[in-house]
């Protein structure tokens, strides 16, 4: 490919070593320096570099001890002083007199922290992944152990366990012998099994055995010294930390309290393992690009700038600040209350409803409480309309972070009075609406690779059989099961799925429900009776909205809301026969 083809290699003289330096992309463009970790070589960045080369001058080098660079003997040659001298040499050779965008992974990131803190004037931005500043970790551990609350101890122990190899690397000779004696093959196998990173040309490198053995020096020369006596390291460089939530070596909790030392800090979490540049190159490249563009005052799309604002660490930040939340059925009841609850917490809201005027009202109120609201008219049961809607949202607003498939209709009456048309109507809106919403927006979220959350409004009727609600309860039970299945599949992509089962909530669903097998007048009376009963119950949609927000924050699977819904949920599992008995009551 073109980007790979124009890759040039040259040797740069570091502090007593020869470094292999690789460059691609137009040299007149801003420079990105990618620093690899242990036991990798520059090739761990191949996918990311290729994606960045179109817009940046991408510079990589094999760190001393790795790949095609020299491997000095003895751990003394691997201290930060030497590493910093090497980096300076590379910068002087490839990007003299210009600030570069610094990116580090694993040990590359540890070095990059040192660089960002000790020579901040050389960097326009810094992106760190899976490699904390050792001094920060030292301080972090001390803070945790100085106040040994159960949580602090758990977090500290979590990182302690993840660092098992560090202790091992302090052992003399043995690690080198193992690497040289053929640890490379099982390592590559473990990478594939544990991280899902398949071996490819260049990574793991053919030099892995030698890289692994030489790089042990990095740990021996620096780790204990910095962890035992951490220095006060700070940087004003705009810093972005990419936090893989399933990292087996670096605890996601290590970023806690970082903003005290790094005022200009953004955090981005991704459901990935340690080798995130290999497993998620699209996401990593996009985030590097967005962060670098923002740091140099470049132009960003609305979605990009929202993503950056969402990542920003700020004390006064509301929990859903700069998130995009889509709610269907947002013109009234639970949908409107949910849209407003998210808006109140800083989210930009897309309010969709069959009734455009009602959706516009919700959007207006959302704009009053949060950054902005947008109204769309959509019939969730119409596949084509939903496709259009999802595309429009994507183009006009970006990929949503939360989607609430809430639109639904009520229907009550005897099974014998439900016509085919009645069944179609209920299933079209209540089930297909959720299927379309989940399908289209989950695809967008998965494609983006940054996670998200889908909330489906089911009902307590999903687990409460009743002779009066055959069609409605069936549609809602289907939504519940759909949510559970979807949750299982989307878990791996960092997308949460929650099913909400409200129970008896006072909304206008009772005024719009269809009571099958009844004349108009009788129907009106039934609606009025149901509305009065629901009003007497007195549980408003705001309470449900609060639970939906919490379900997203805590990634809850199934949330029965009202006490009767919770009781029903319990009874449906503990005493299904009682539920069957109650189902015979005609409450319609």
């Amino acid at each position, binding site marked *: 490919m073109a980007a790979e083809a124009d890759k040039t290699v040259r040797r740069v003289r570091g502090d007593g070593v020869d470094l292999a330096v690789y460059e691609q992309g137009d040299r007149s463009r801003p420079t990105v320096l990618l620093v690899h970790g242990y036991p990798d070589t520059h090739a761990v960045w191949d996918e990311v570099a290729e994606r960045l080369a179109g817009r940046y001058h991408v510079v990589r080098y094999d760190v001393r001890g790795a790949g095609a660079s020299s491997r000095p003997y003895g751990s003394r040659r691997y201290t930060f002083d030497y590493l910093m001298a090497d980096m300076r040499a590379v910068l002087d050779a490839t990007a003299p007199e210009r600030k570069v965008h610094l990116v580090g992974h694993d040990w590359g990131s540890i070095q990059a922290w040192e660089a960002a803190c000790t020579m901040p004037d050389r960097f326009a931005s810094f992106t760190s992944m899976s490699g904390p500043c050792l001094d920060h970790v030292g301080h972090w551990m001390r803070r945790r152990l100085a106040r040994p609350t159960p949580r602090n101890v758990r977090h500290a122990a979590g990182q302690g366990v993840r660092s098992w190899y560090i202790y091992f690397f302090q052992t003399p000779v043995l690690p080198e012998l193992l690497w040289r004696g053929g640890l490379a093959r099982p390592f590559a196998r473990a990478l594939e099994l544990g991280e899902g990173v398949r071996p490819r040309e260049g990574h793991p490198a053919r030099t892995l055995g030698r890289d692994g053995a030489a790089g042990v020096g990095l740990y021996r020369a620096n780790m204990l010294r910095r962890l035992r006596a951490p220095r006060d390291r700070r940087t004003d460089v705009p810093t972005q930390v990419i936090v893989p939530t399933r990292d087996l070596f670096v605890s996601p909790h290590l970023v806690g309290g970082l903003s005290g030392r790094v005022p200009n800090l953004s955090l981005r979490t991704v459901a990935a393992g340690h080798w995130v540049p290999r497993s998620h190159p699209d996401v990593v490249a996009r985030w590097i690009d967005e962060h670098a563009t923002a740091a140099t005052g470049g132009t960003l799309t609305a979605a990009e700038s929202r993503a950056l604002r969402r990542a920003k660490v700020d004390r006064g930040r509301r929990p859903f600040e700069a998130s995009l939340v889509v709610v269907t059925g947002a013109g*009234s009841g639970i949908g*409107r209350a949910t849209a*407003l609850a998210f808006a*109140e917490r800083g989210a930009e809201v897309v309010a969709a409803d069959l009734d455009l005027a*009602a959706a516009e*009202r*919700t959007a*207006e*109120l959302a704009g*009053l*409480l949060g950054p902005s609201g947008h109204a769309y008219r959509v019939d969730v049961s119409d596949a084509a309309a939903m496709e259009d809607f999802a595309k429009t949202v994507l183009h006009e607003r970006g990929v949503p972070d939360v989607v609430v498939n809430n639109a639904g209709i009520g229907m009550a009456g005897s099974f014998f009075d439900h016509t085919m048309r009645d069944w179609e109507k209920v299933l079209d809106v209540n089930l297909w609406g959720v299927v379309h919403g989940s399908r289209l927006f989950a695809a967008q979220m998965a494609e983006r690779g940054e996670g998200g959350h889908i909330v489906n409004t089911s009902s307590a009727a999903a687990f409460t059989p009743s002779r009066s609600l055959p069609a409605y309860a069936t549609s809602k039970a289907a939504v519940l099961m759909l949510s559970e299945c979807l949750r299982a599949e989307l878990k791996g992509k960092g997308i949460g799925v929650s099913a909400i089962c409200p129970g008896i909530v006072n909304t*206008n669903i009772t005024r719009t429900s269809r009571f099958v097998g009844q004349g108009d007048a009788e129907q009106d009376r039934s609606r009025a009776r149901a509305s009065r009963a629901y009003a007497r119950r007195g549980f408003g949609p705001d309470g449900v909205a609060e639970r939906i927000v919490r379900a997203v924050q805590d990634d809850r699977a199934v949330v029965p809301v009202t006490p009767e819904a919770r009781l029903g949920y319990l009874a449906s599992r503990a005493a299904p026969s009682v539920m069957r008995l109650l189902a015979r009551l005609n409450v319609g």
Partner: protein
Amino acid sequence: MSNNVALARTDSPAELERFREIQRLCYECADEVAATLEPGVTEREACRRMRRWLRAHGVDDWLHTPFAWFGDRSAFTGFKTPAAFLPSGARLEEGMPYILDMAPVKRGYAADIGYGGVLGENRIWERLDADLAEYRSFILGLVRERRTFADIYAEVDALIDRQGYQSRHRKYPGRVIGHQVGVIGGILPKGVGFPFGVRFLQTIGRELVKERLEGRSPLWNGAKASEHPPTPGLWAVEPHIGFRGVGVKFEELLVVTEDDAYWLDDDLPHVHRWARREALA
């Protein structure tokens, strides 16, 4: 009437003029006291200012003593018992909404007004107040159609729901959106069975019985007793809406005749405010 306690005679221009005067006096008081509100003032202090002002201007009895609700209390947030309505030590702050509510009696003629405002800027209050304007013509229109009071109550509820707000008048005793007002007198002493005036309680108590016999009620809410067409007389109408800790209301006298209805006075601060906002939009 023999005992000098009566519902207003809406066919007497002179009598209506007396009610108009006392209502104007109330709004004058509200305007003046509102102008003195500054950060740090408590509800109690605001009520004291209203009481003093009204006493100084000839007020001799109360339907109820003045109320003031500041901040989220203007939306009756967390009001569990009737005592919560009484003026508290809550202090006014910049950006806070407030409501002043007073119902004085002067030489037997009474008014009952509600006055909403905000100290400084508050986007939610602005929106809410702009939307409140609709209720004045909406309610009047429905009364003119001679829909039943219960019906109108339900229509107002539906409008509040469409707007995405909450009905706050449902928190008032009896969930009332309005109540009848008349000439206050009687043999009981002037005085306050806190916070309601003794003579007012006497009047409303008597009317509750008397109207009941005719299948009507001097209280206007959504219940069965209000399922009757508008009763001729003077009605203090007080729609009160709330949203996220901000409440606004207006309260003024509506004249209901046998076949028509009109607001007693259109020369009122909130009417002018809404007209100004309308003109700007």
